[in-house]
Structure formats: structure tokens, C-alpha cells
């Protein structure tokens, strides 16, 4: 498309409270807006399901990816406690977490009940690895 073919031509700046992107059927597929004083970009699938969001809340920025049932499956967040990546199962329960806190970086793996079963973290004392049973009892650790 040439500049001449563009009705109204390109403008330098468009300012609005809400930008909505619709598909050829008129369905909302993306929205850039401020809700409750929190700016965010939301993306929707062809069924109108909310599937992805990049938001800045009072707790910090975050990215969420949702499955077709509306369950969160992956979340990235940068909160006061530190940044983290969480991966969730089909029930929305967190099963894997990679995070950096004030104590240092760490990796945790959880069972279907949300109990952490394997954890690796690095503190000022050095790296440590621990495995626990479903009741939280340590079954192996190093050092």
C-alpha cells in the first residue's frame, strides 16, 4: 500500500484511553487499555477467550499466558520480592518456579498438590539442593 492509498495518511501520534484491535469478524482480539489504574495489553483467541496479558499493577509488571479454559499456564512477574517465572499445570497449579529473591536465585518443582518436592537455590552460604516427600519431609539434600 502506498502512502497515497492510505486514507488520511499516517499521523505522527494517536492518543487515546483505549485501543481495541478487532478481526475481520469484528471480534476483539487485542486491547491496550488502563483498567483500575493499571495499564495492560490483552490478547484474545478466535473464541474471544483471554489468552495473554502484559500488565503493570501496583505489585509490578507481569506477563500471563492462559489456556483455552482460562487457566494460567505460564506467568512472569517482577514483584518487590524479585522476578520469577512460574509454569502451571492444566488446573492452574504452579509446578515449576524459577525466581530471584533477596536471598538469591532458586528453582523449585512442585507436585500436583502444590507441594515443593525439589528445590535448588543459591544463597550467600552457597548452592544447595533438596528433595522432599509429599508430606514435606526431606528425603535427600546436598550439602
Amino acid at each position, binding site marked *: 500500500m502506498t502512502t497515497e492509498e492510505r486514507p488520511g495518511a499516517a*499521523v505522527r501520534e494517536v492518543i487515546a484511553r483505549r485501543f481495541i484491535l478487532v478481526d475481520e469478524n469484528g471480534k476483539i482480539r487485542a486491547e491496550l487499555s488502563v483498567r483500575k489504574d493499571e*495499564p495492560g495489553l490483552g490478547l484474545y483467541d478466535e473464541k474471544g477467550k483471554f489468552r495473554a496479558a502484559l500488565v503493570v499493577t501496583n505489585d509490578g509488571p507481569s506477563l500471563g499466558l492462559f489456556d483455552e479454559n482460562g487457566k494460567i499456564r505460564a506467568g512472569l512477574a517482577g514483584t518487590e520480592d524479585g522476578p520469577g517465572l512460574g509454569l502451571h499445570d492444566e488446573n492452574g497449579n504452579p509446578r515449576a518456579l524459577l525466581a530471584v529473591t533477596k536471598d538469591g536465585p532458586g528453582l523449585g518443582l512442585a507436585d500436583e498438590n502444590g507441594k515443593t518436592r525439589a528445590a535448588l537455590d*543459591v544463597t550467600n552460604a552457597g548452592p544447595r539442593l533438596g528433595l522432599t516427600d509429599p508430606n514435606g519431609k526431606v528425603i535427600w539434600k546436598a550439602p
Partner: protein
Amino acid sequence: MTTEERKVITAREVIACRFILEDDNGRTRAELRVTKDRPLLVLLDENGTPRAALGVDKDGPRLTLLNENGNPRFRLGVLEDSPILLLHDENGKPLAMLGVFKGGPRLALLDENGKPLWTAP
């Protein structure tokens, strides 16, 4: 923005160099722009500090989440065809890295100087 200026514009296509999202107080809370040939979406907090950025630069696409001081805490990107995830401390120093490289996946936990404390494999 006055009440008279509040309206809904429906168009098949809106072409611009910069889209600015304002909140009810007229503060810029998001910008979609092209800077130095790089498309970029930036979300800002109530103080005007950039807190999230999604862009594409010459190295590839990148998502960055920043703290209230503007320091990066989280980076996800594709660098030279390798997806990389970086977690940073409050000063912006990377402390954890997860990536997939030509040799395979790699996880590393780092100290404040970027020295690997633990890596796998």
C-alpha cells in the same frame, strides 16, 4: 482531554508512528512506537517509570520487566536464534539464566559479578 474530545473512532486501519495510551488523569501509561527502526511497546506505572517493554531489535524479540527504579528484573528474549531467560537482582544484575543454545539447554545461577555458582548440564 476534555469531555468533548472523548469519542470512539472506528477504523479498519490506523497508521501512526506512535500510539499513546493515557489514563484518566492524562498520564501516559503505555506507548507503542517505532524507535530507531525498532518497534516497541512500553507500559509505565503511575509515576511514569517504564515497567514492562516488549520490542524487537536487531538481535531479536525481547520482553523486559523492570522494577520501580527502572532496573531490569526479568528478561526474556531470542539472541542469535537462542531463547534466553534472565532473572536480575534489584540492581539489575543477572543472577539466574535459562537458555537453549546450539549445544542444548543450560541453566545457570550466578553471583553478583556474573560468575556462575551452579550450572547444568
